[in-house]
């Protein structure tokens, strides 16, 4: 099939076909809801220039100078400070399009440099002191009952007003 410029990749169909060919019998059930929650920005009662911005990512960041620890199968939420220069961070993510691109430039999936600049320029009030890593989970239950509540808890502790989430 030839893709025109306006045609984006159908990952749900492609994943189903790919893993079926690999011998997996039961296709993955992607999360689906009829209703979408909404908190209007206006309900915060202040401009973006006074908002603290939180950041969540699936990019599995680690400090470059730290030894990789053992792989924890629970893959719990963890956080790192947002003031680490991006050149001291690296992604450990393995599930991305490694044929077409790289994860060498942190700001192409975790825009810390640009958020700090927007804070310095007054476009946003501040960047939250830490950002959260969440694993791309097979289990919806785990995301909703363990990971998401932990992120909310940390964001409340950090007095985060709005959140930017990047899916790698």
């Amino acid at each position, binding site marked *: 099939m030839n893709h025109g410029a306006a045609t984006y990749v159908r990952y*749900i169909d492609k994943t189903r076909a790919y893993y079926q060919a690999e011998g997996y019998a039961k296709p993955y059930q992607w999360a689906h809801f009829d209703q979408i929650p909404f908190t209007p920005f206006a*309900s915060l009662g202040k401009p973006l220039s006074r908002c603290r911005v939180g950041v969540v990512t699936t990019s599995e960041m680690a400090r470059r100078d730290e030894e990789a620890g053992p792989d924890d199968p629970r893959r719990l939420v963890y956080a790192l400070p947002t003031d680490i220069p991006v050149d001291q961070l690296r992604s450990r993510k393995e599930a991305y399009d490694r044929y077409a691109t790289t994860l060498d430039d942190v700001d192409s999936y975790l825009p810390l440099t640009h958020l700090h600049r*927007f804070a310095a320029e007054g476009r946003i009030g501040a960047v939250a002191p830490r950002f959260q890593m969440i694993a791309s989970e097979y289990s919806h239950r785990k995301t909703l009952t363990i990971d998401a509540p932990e992120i909310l808890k940390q964001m409340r502790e950090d007095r985060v007003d709005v959140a*930017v989430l990047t899916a790698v």
Partner: protein
Amino acid sequence: MSLAARYLEENGIPTVVFGCARDIVEYCGVPRFIFSDFPLGNPTGRPYDLDMQREVLSLGLDLLVNATAPGTTVVTPYEWSADHSWKDKVLTKEQPFLDPEATRKWLARKEAYRALKATGKI
């Protein structure tokens, strides 16, 4: 990721998701979504293109403030390359999604997770 955005939003924190898998994010349904028609990996702009990255983030901040209804998608105006053949190669036998070592780690982690779940530890 989409589930986390929904959860934060339900709890009073406006969110914006940046991603490259439009069908997955929209099938789940998130309040605000910035879609880049890029390979999985660079949802906030092309590597080392600081102007594009800044603009993509800026679009997201605008959407945070200006969205009036949930399920709003904004498509970034950038093309990964004039040649779209990378899309055809995604998730094919010729280009396995994970390399063999990553696949082995993924399967081992799945087994370990199942074992933890069976003992009620997660």
